[in-house]
């Protein structure tokens, strides 16, 4: 009996979350950046550093990307997902991925590297400074979102394993576990999911390995515990729930290249002037908004990435 806490002494959730929000906004608005800098060792120049708090029940809204577009609501990001390992419907994975086991989890990094090794997911989170990056995400189906990812540049992980000169491409592989992922029983697709990047694309600073969204850990339907994010390519390039990263010398065949070689190319750069037989690539609709607008070349990251494809015929290398 003496351990019993009277219900009136418990702070209601809405109250403490509003207090947290108050504290957070106060810190933000009163020139307290020096305070943050002094108490958080994780801040580094250029990036917004954050310490993801997976227990936090709040989501900080009001973020914008580099072009000033507001982030898509957390609810929409976690409820509307393409994750064919669970379902071909976009509304189903959130339900079907519930209870997906993400611990223990290891990512094997090998192939043409000097230091092949396995990384535990907690190790990854500790080794690499987790930053917040607000990126536009353009799905090949002509819808898009703006997502505040938590993660780190893939380059940092690749630097540790030291790719050799034979490594020309990076091949990524999603976990294969049809017991947990019932969509992998669908014979229409050659599982497991494979994606790939050219070495220079993989080493680009924008290319992210993400472990969270909106300051929280990734939900299973968003690709927990670790996924790729390549903001200038169509969403399907950003492979989810990665278990293996292989440095290879030959161009990898992605799952979508195997399913429809005439529809899905290796590069899959967002490009409004290269058509897809099904979806308009000229325009898109931002989730949460009703109007359609013109899609930008390289999803608006032209300044950062156009040099990677100089001299290439983008209609051939689609």
């Amino acid at each position, binding site marked *: 009996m003496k351990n019993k806490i009277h219900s009136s002494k418990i702070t209601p959730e809405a109250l403490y979350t509003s207090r947290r929000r108050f504290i957070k906004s106060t810190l933000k608005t009163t020139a307290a950046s020096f305070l943050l800098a002094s108490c958080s060792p994780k801040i580094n120049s250029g990036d917004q550093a954050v310490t993801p708090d997976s227990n936090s029940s709040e989501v900080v809204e009001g973020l914008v990307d580099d072009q000033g577009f507001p982030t898509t609501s957390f609810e929409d990001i976690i409820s509307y997902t393409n994750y064919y390992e669970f379902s071909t419907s976009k509304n189903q994975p959130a339900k079907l991925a519930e209870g997906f086991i993400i611990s223990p989890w290891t990512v094997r990094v090998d192939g043409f590297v000097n230091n092949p090794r396995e990384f535990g997911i907690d190790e990854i989170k500790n080794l690499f400074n987790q930053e917040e990056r607000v990126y536009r995400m353009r799905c090949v189906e002509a819808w898009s979102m703006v997502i505040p990812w938590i993660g780190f540049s893939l380059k940092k992980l690749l630097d540790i394993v030291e790719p050799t000169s034979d490594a020309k491409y990076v091949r990524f592989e999603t976990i294969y576990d049809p017991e947990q992922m019932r969509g992998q029983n669908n014979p*229409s697709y050659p599982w497991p999911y494979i994606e790939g990047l050219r070495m220079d694309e993989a080493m680009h600073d924008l290319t992210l390995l993400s472990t969270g969204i909106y300051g929280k850990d990734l939900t299973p339907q968003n690709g927990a515990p670790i996924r790729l994010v390549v903001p200038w390519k169509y969403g399907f390039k950003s492979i989810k729930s990665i278990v293996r990263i292989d440095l290879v010398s030959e161009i990898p065949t992605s799952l979508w290249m195997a399913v*429809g070689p005439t529809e899905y190319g290796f590069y899959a750069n967002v490009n409004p002037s290269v058509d897809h*037989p099904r979806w308009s690539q000229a325009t898109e609709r931002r989730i949460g908004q009703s109007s359609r607008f013109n899609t930008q070349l390289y999803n608006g990251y032209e300044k950062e990435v156009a040099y990677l494809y100089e001299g290439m015929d983008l209609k051939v290398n689609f």
Partner: protein
Amino acid sequence: MKFTRIQIIINFLSLLPATIICFLLIQGTLSANPIQTATVVTGRTAIYLLLISLFCTPLNNILKISVFIRIRKTVGLYAFYYSLVHFLIFSIIDYELNLSWILPEITQKPYLQIGLVALTLLLLLALTSLQTIKKSIGIWWKRIHNLVYIITALIIVHITLASKGDIIEPIILMGLFLFAMSWRIPPLKKISIQNTPKWAHDLNTFLIQ
């Protein structure tokens, strides 16, 4: 005007998808991408209704459940309404009647061209189903309405081309279509049960009231 039981059931079932879409839309829970979801649901409803209409004749021929013949036209018309709404959502709500967006889409994408042909033919069938027109065109009515088989095939091709690699649904649709069609080829067409089973007879009597 008094509705028979079958009419009530068919009208209720046909209006159900539209009602659910409207309800979820107002409630704001028709997925994070409501326009896309509404497009898919109206399109799917149309093809399944069209397939149901193709089973009416065989059910009458084999089991003598004549009541289905009476609702064949209603089901076919609902399939047309859903196809039309499907197209209107695409052109008005999704592409905002912006011809500089719509025209390149249609010229580039065979699945859209096939869908448009199917919709145009369905419109022809819907118009000629009006009693006055039906009477005035005589033998042509039958010829025109045989187009429903081609329309169904076109819509299945439209869905197959629009599907992202998934072959399961196209296979199900094609299977249902071929099953319905198989009862129209000469050997199977002749099949009819001599003594109509009692349940079929009772069902017919119940629904027809």
